């Protein structure tokens, strides 16, 4: 590192919206690399990782890279997100909730009044303002996102490769092929042959197919690839005995798949 490293170290901030904060934990679990990350980045805000209870960066404070975790569910969050976009040169969506809406999107299957009443009971009505809620949205339905790190949670490898790419001024690469590729490379027997069904053939890879490798199925947490063959997958699921309803449910689990975005910075979604 050069002498004036402190001056050229980009400032980074981590923000969290509606989510479980597991993607921030995934960042923190890069234990071997954390010293390198701290040497290269000047982290100005990272609540999950900081001891001091400091407030969020003020209006005057600048940061170059904003990692944004979580989906948007309140008006307050919309205002805050727009502010982040104004300040940051690069905005990175961290994880499924921020990039596709994530599991939180399950809420969107019901009317908002019903949802509030289910969770807060009689207080829903009493503290209307406190419990204000909007249908769940990924952050790019509100601001422009420069790079997506998909997954529930994010992949450490992908986070680190995005981190090095950004520091070198390169475009972070997000895979644009189905999980089947990772799954075959892992040497797995296809889930369909094992008498189960899976969303892998239309879901974005980059996860090394860990779920299938450890005996589970792909639930599509990374969202669809740029150009998924959804109609073919519906046919396949039908052939393997899934009903239309259960198909829609599985497609819907990790957010509305129709809201999928391009794989990486500067690459447009596939043409229709």
């Amino acid at each position, binding site marked *: 590192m050069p002498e004036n490293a402190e001056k050229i170290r980009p400032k980074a901030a981590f923000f969290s919206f509606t989510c479980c904060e597991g993607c921030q934990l995934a960042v923190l679990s890069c234990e071997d690399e954390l010293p*390198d990350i701290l040497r290269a980045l000047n982290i100005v805000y990272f609540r999950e990782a900081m001891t001091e209870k400091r407030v969020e960066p003020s209006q005057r404070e600048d940061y170059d890279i904003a990692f944004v975790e979580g989906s948007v569910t309140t008006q307050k969050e919309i205002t805050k997100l727009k502010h982040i976009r104004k300040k940051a040169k690069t905005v990175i969506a961290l994880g499924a909730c921020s990039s596709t809406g994530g599991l939180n999107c399950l809420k969107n299957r019901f009317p908002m009044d019903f949802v509030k009443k289910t969770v807060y009971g009689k207080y829903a009505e009493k503290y209307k303002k406190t419990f204000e809620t909007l249908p769940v949205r990924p952050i790019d339905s509100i601001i422009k996102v420069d790079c997506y790190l998909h997954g529930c949670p994010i992949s450490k490898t992908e986070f680190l490769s995005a981190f*090095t790419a950004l520091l070198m001024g390169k475009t972070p690469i997000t895979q644009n092929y*189905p999980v089947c590729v990772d799954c*075959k490379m892992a040497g797995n*027997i296809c889930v*369909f042959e094992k008498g189960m069904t899976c969303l892998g*053939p239309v879901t974005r890879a980059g996860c090394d197919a860990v779920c299938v490798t450890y005996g589970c199925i792909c639930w599509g947490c990374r969202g669809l690839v740029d150009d998924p063959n959804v109609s*073919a997958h519906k046919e396949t699921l039908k052939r393997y005995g899934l009903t239309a309803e259960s198909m829609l449910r599985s497609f819907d689990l990790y957010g509305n798949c129709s809201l999928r975005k391009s794989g990486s910075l500067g690459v447009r979604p596939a043409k229709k």
Partner: protein
Amino acid sequence: MEKFSFLSNKEFRKLVEGLTGSFTVYGTVRKDARLSAAGDGFPAYGRISCFEDLVLGLTPTHLSAKEFLFPQRETLLKFDIEKMTHAAVVEAVDQVIIGLHPCDIHAVGLMDRVFAYGKPDVNYLARRAKTVIIGTDCMPDRFCFCKSVDTMNVDAGFDIFLHRVKGVEPPQGAGPPQNGFLVRTATDRGKTILSKYAKAKKASLKQLDEIAAFEKKREDSFTAHIDAPAGQLPEIYSKSDESPVWERIGAICYGCGSCNNVCPTCYCFDVKDEMKSNLNEGERVRVWDGCTLEDFAKVTGGHNFRRTRSDRLRHRFNRKFNYLTGRFGALFCVGCGRCSRTCLVQINISEVTNELIREYNAKKRQ
């Protein structure tokens, strides 16, 4: 006739145990037994650390054995920007692959030619030179069509080849007949290994009859086939660019690259430079790529030379039956049927080819 010798099961065990003691051994295993319909698992390749791991299957494995010669991911170069150093990496260990079927052995032969073509690929060739190949006989399932592409039998490309036999009838009261193998060797290395670790006996006429009968049964068991001579396929494919087949199969294709990844002769790869988080050290790695994936033919600026799944499938099929035949003088499909077996939307390589043959013949008659 002299080329065959007999290896009893006991001696075969000694051979495998001898090999696991001195080599890294890979071979055919059964995977996920609990989840398979028959309860005995799916045929796959895996690491063999003891004799019991090895299950010589009659039907093809899910993935081919190419990963042991051409790994999914390998480091080609290590560099350090701060120290201004770089060093090529060639990783190769003495290894044995047991259980390749004739189609797989033909496939390895094609890979050998690919990686020796032009500027020889040091990494592949180093690994290949240190690899002992032990083949075994097989029985076709409904996807196998090696008989139609002339890869049903092998005389070279392996070190040792095993034909299953029941063995000599023991004298009465001496237990069940002893199973074993009639073995062939095609290289000096194969001969040395065989004599070093096991004692092979002379094959009996009865045993030779037995494998002849097995081979006859095998030849009669094919249900999938290609309806034109193998030599005619490049011509048929070169006249099929406009066929409606491509649109039809393109519409149902996922573009998931499974056909590429399970194929024993698909060798396309991507080379990437990956920096470590300290931003000084890095590696140049090579990873498998597949021509049916959307970004395969995408270039800087965003243009994609094969944008649709139809375009990409047509390209893949032509690579197997047309484009590469000119350069290497052989079809690049060995008829193992793995792509058809793995395809979730049931795109079947032999059926597609037959459809093109029918169209070609119909056009010719006009």
